[in-house]
C-alpha cells in the first residue's frame, strides 16, 4: 500500500510528491501524458521570489529574466511597472518543459515512484483507505493508498468525483491560445500585457519574451463575454499590433479564474494547483500557487500518515495552510477582477491615463490597484476595503 498517490506531474503534483517522499513516505506519482512537461499550456511567467522560495534556481529552467512589466490600455496608453534599479530582475520566464521534468526527477530522487502514460480512472473508499484504479496502455490495475492528491489540472476528475469542487461556469474560466514566436523584435527586459474588451474580452493578451528574439504570444478570453474563439482573438491581436515573426509552436489551454474555493479536501483526498482552482483570477498565474499548494499538501500528507488520520477534518490543516498563504489573495483578486470586468474600454483608458508615467515600483496587482484608488477614489471606492 502507498502512503500517497499523486495524480498529475505538473508543478503542484511533483512538488507534493517530492515533499512527501523527502519526509520518508511511500509515494506514487502518475502522469497521464507520455511526456512530462509538454504540451506546455502556460505563458511560463513567475516572480523571482516565488521560485526562489522553494528552489536553488537552475539556469536551464530559465528562458529569460525580466526587470518589469508594461501594461497597455485599449488605446495603447502604457503603464510601466519596474524596480528603480535597472538590472534588478523581478521575474522569470521559465522553460516549463525543462522545469517540470526536473521537478518530477527531484520527486523520483527523493524516493517517489513515477509512472507516465497512466490515467487514474476512478477511486473507491475501502475501510478508511482508497483503492485507485489505474490504466496504462490498455492495462488496468489497482493500487491502495492512504491519501490521494489530485493535481490533475483544470480538467480534474478527482475533485469533481470527490464532490470537492463545482464545475467551472463560463465566467469562471479563461480560454487561452498561445504561439511561441521567433524572429521577433521585442525588448526582452519586460513582459507585456494588453487589456481591453475588443482585444481580449474578459481577459488579456500577453507577450512574454523568452530570449533569442522569441516570445510566448498569447491570449486569454472569458467564454461568457467572448463571441469567438481564443485563437481568433489571438490571430487578430497579432495582426492588429503588427507582430511579425515565425510561429514555431501552438498551444491551447484553460485557466480557472474562480477565486478561493471553500475547501480543497475530503476524506483521504487533497487537491492542489489548477485542480483546486488555485490560479490567480486577475493574472491567471498558477505556477507559484501550485508549487506552494503542492508543498503544503505533501507536508500535511506526512502529518496525516504519522497520525494515522486521513479524515477531512485532519486534512483541513492543508486548507488552513494554503488559505493563509495565498487564499486571501485569490479572494481579493477575484473581487478586483469582477470590478474590472464591468469596465468598458473607455473607462480602462481613463484609468490608465491617470497613472501613466508614474513609476510603480512594485510588480503587483496590489500596487496598481492602490495607485488607481488614489487617483479615482469614487470609481473604485468599493475596492479600498480589500487592502485594509
Amino acid at each position: 500500500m502507498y502512503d500517497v498517490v499523486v495524480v498529475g506531474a505538473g508543478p503542484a503534483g511533483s512538488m507534493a510528491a517530492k515533499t512527501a517522499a523527502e519526509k520518508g513516505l511511500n509515494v506514487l506519482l502518475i502522469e497521464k501524458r507520455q511526456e512530462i512537461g509538454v504540451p506546455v499550456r502556460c505563458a511560463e511567467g513567475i516572480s523571482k521570489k516565488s521560485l526562489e522560495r522553494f528552489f536553488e534556481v537552475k539556469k536551464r529552467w530559465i528562458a529569460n529574466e525580466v526587470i518589469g512589466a508594461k501594461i497597455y490600455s485599449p488605446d495603447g496608453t502604457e503603464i510601466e511597472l519596474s524596480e528603480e534599479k535597472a538590472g534588478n530582475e523581478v521575474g522569470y520566464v521559465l522553460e516549463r518543459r525543462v522545469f517540470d521534468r526536473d521537478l518530477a526527477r527531484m520527486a523520483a530522487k527523493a524516493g517517489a515512484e513515477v509512472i507516465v502514460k497512466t490515467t487514474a480512472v476512478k477511486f473507491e473508499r475501502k475501510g478508511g483507505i482508497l483503492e485507485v484504479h489505474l490504466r496504462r496502455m490498455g492495462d488496468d490495475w489497482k493500487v491502495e493508498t492512504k491519501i490521494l492528491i489530485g493535481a490533475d489540472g483544470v480538467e480534474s476528475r478527482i475533485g469533481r468525483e470527490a464532490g470537492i469542487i463545482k464545475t467551472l461556469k463560463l465566467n469562471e474560466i479563461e480560454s487561452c491560445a498561445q504561439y511561441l514566436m521567433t524572429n521577433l523584435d521585442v525588448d526582452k527586459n519586460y513582459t507585456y500585457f494588453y487589456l481591453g474588451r475588443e482585444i481580449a474580452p474578459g481577459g488579456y493578451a500577453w507577450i512574454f519574451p523568452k530570449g533569442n528574439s522569441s516570445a510566448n504570444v498569447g491570449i486569454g478570453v472569458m467564454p461568457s463575454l467572448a463571441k469567438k474563439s481564443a485563437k481568433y482573438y489571438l490571430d487578430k491581436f497579432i495582426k492588429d499590433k503588427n507582430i511579425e515573426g515565425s510561429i514555431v509552436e501552438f498551444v491551447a489551454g484553460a485557466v480557472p479564474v474562480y477565486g478561493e474555493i471553500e475547501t480543497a479536501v475530503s476524506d483521504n483526498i487533497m487537491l492542489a494547483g489548477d485542480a483546486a482552482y488555485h490560479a490567480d483570477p486577475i493574472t491567471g498565474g498558477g505556477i507559484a500557487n501550485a508549487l506552494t499548494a503542492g508543498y503544503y499538501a505533501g507536508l500535511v500528507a506526512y502529518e496525516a500518515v504519522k497520525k494515522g488520520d486521513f479524515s477531512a477534518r485532519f486534512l483541513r490543516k492543508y486548507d488552513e495552510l494554503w488559505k493563509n498563504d495565498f487564499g486571501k489573495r485569490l479572494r481579493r483578486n477575484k473581487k478586483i477582477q469582477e470590478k474590472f470586468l464591468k469596465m468598458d474600454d473607455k473607462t480602462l483608458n481613463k484609468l490608465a491615463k491617470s497613472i501613466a508615467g508614474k513609476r510603480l515600483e512594485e510588480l503587483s496587482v496590489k500596487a496598481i490597484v492602490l495607485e488607481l484608488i488614489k487617483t479615482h477614489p469614487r470609481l473604485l471606492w468599493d475596492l479600498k476595503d480589500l487592502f485594509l
Partner: protein
Amino acid sequence: MAKKIVIDRYKCAYCGACVAVCKFNANELIETFVVIHEDLCNCCMNCVKVCPTNALSVVEV
C-alpha cells in the same frame, strides 16, 4: 430533432478546456484524444463556447 456535439480533430489542440466546463462529465481527454460520451452529453454548449480553437460544434442528427 436530436442534437450532438462533434469534434474537428484537425482543430483540436487537446487542451482539456472542454472537460473542465462539462457538468455532465461527458468529455474526457485521453492524452491527446478528446472523447465525447454521447450518452452523458446534454448539448449544453459550454464546451463549444470554451474551446480555444473552435474545434467543437453542434450538429443535428
